[in-house]
């Protein structure tokens, strides 16, 4: 069972309050009409599925209902850091 720190509520709560919401940093294509079927497939279906430290989205479903970012190990489940959206804007690598 995970103990997750919500960066908005600023409290660590039981995992049962949260729902996982998939891999982070998948940006919707900026020119949807201009890209190929392969690029669409990559955006919609293909995933990194990284083994190791992995950035993902969680939503505080039974709390503030906001989405945020979590870096978590997919090997040990250890949560390394949490961040609100937008924190990555001025950094090359979060």
């Amino acid at each position, binding site marked *: 069972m995970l103990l997750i720190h919500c960066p908005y509520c600023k409290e660590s709560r039981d*995992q049962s309050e949260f729902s996982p919401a998939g891999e982070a940093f998948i940006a919707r294509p900026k020119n949807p009409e201009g890209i190929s*079927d392969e690029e669409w497939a990559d955006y919609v279906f293909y995933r990194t599925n990284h083994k190791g430290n992995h950035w*993902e989205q969680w939503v505080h479903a039974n709390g503030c209902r906001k989405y945020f970012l979590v870096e978590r190990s997919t090997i040990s489940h250890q949560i390394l850091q949490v961040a609100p959206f937008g924190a990555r804007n001025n950094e090359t690598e979060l």
Partner: protein
Amino acid sequence: MQTKYSWYSLLKAGLSGQDWDQAIPLIQPKSKYDVIIIGGGGHGLATAYYLAKECGINNVAVVEKGYIGGGNTGRNTTIIRSNYLRDEASSLYEHALQLWEGISEDLNFNVMFSQRGVYNLGHNLQNMRDIERRVNANVLNGVDAVVVDANEIKQQIPIINTSKNARYPILGASYQARGGVARHDGIAWGFARAASMIGVDIIQDCEVIDIEVEEGRVKGVKTTKGEIKADRIGCVSAGHSSVLAKMAGLRLPIESHPLQAFVSEAMKPVLHTVVMSNAVHGYISQSDKGDLVVGAGIDGYNSYAQRGSTKIVEHAAAAILELFPIFSRVRMNRQWGGIVDVCPDACPIISPTKVEGLYFNCGWGTGGFKATPGSGNVFAHTIAQDKQHPLAEPFHIDRFTTGALIDEHGAAGVAH
């Protein structure tokens, strides 16, 4: 030296103080093979077996990072059925079920395949409409299936709770009489032994650490037991498919999740069939040993850890108690998780890739065990002919680009 199992060999080994022949030789890899199969689970071993038996390719190695049958093959709840909704999926799973029906004789290994029937319960009107639709589709596809009502279920399974006052009352079910269970790791041992008897090298404790690709063609693998060359490589590594794909510079439309199961203490026969419920999220059967085998759902987050969250187990236990209040005092014995490779449409990928000579058989998600012989069979033909077996054609990885998905979430999404 391996000999055929028979009454005579049983008697001889029994009388001579269990002097059994070695089932599978422990060997070191050669430097080159015609085909390398990565992953010594049921699907991979079946692929190697059918390559040697039906495709005339005997110079095959199966490389397994652990021991055979030690991954998802030995971690699932062993349910076998073929009552899928879509034509493509039901044809593939029915092909597998027909192979199951003759597999013990074919392999000369008792995989304890027991066709004890599978019930998929419906708890509301929409469930029942979906069940009737699926049963009709099954019948049109030549798959045996019937709709049964709550009274018939109660007659067949007296311990089930069909009270109208239940939180999720049982209105009926689909029933596939030819479905059932099998000995999970038995199928891996059987395929491994039969394959090694016709020339396949099964190399355990041999982890692939890189896949060599030159000018878009696969050349071989680097393993913990040295380099092995091959012009054709089949990846059948379930939860670790994305890891292997990355070695070859590919991405897959797959995410790995933990799927959990648990068993009770062994007890006297109480449940003679398999009961599954998508709506309450649990499925149960009783093994030949006597323990109740209960399967849960997946955790929503990605993981390679072979363990999941407690709340998922609690949820499955609650669902089972809802169906079978009699089990409320049953003590649970063990609980574990396996890493399943989930595809967006809950259907597998059996496909060549952009890398020439590299094939993937993955994405079976939460329900691959039932397909073991069929999966290996169509994948072997796909590798041997460099052309997809007709049953595998709809499962090309390009379906995620063309949009021709095979949406099986209704029949496959939750319960297996």
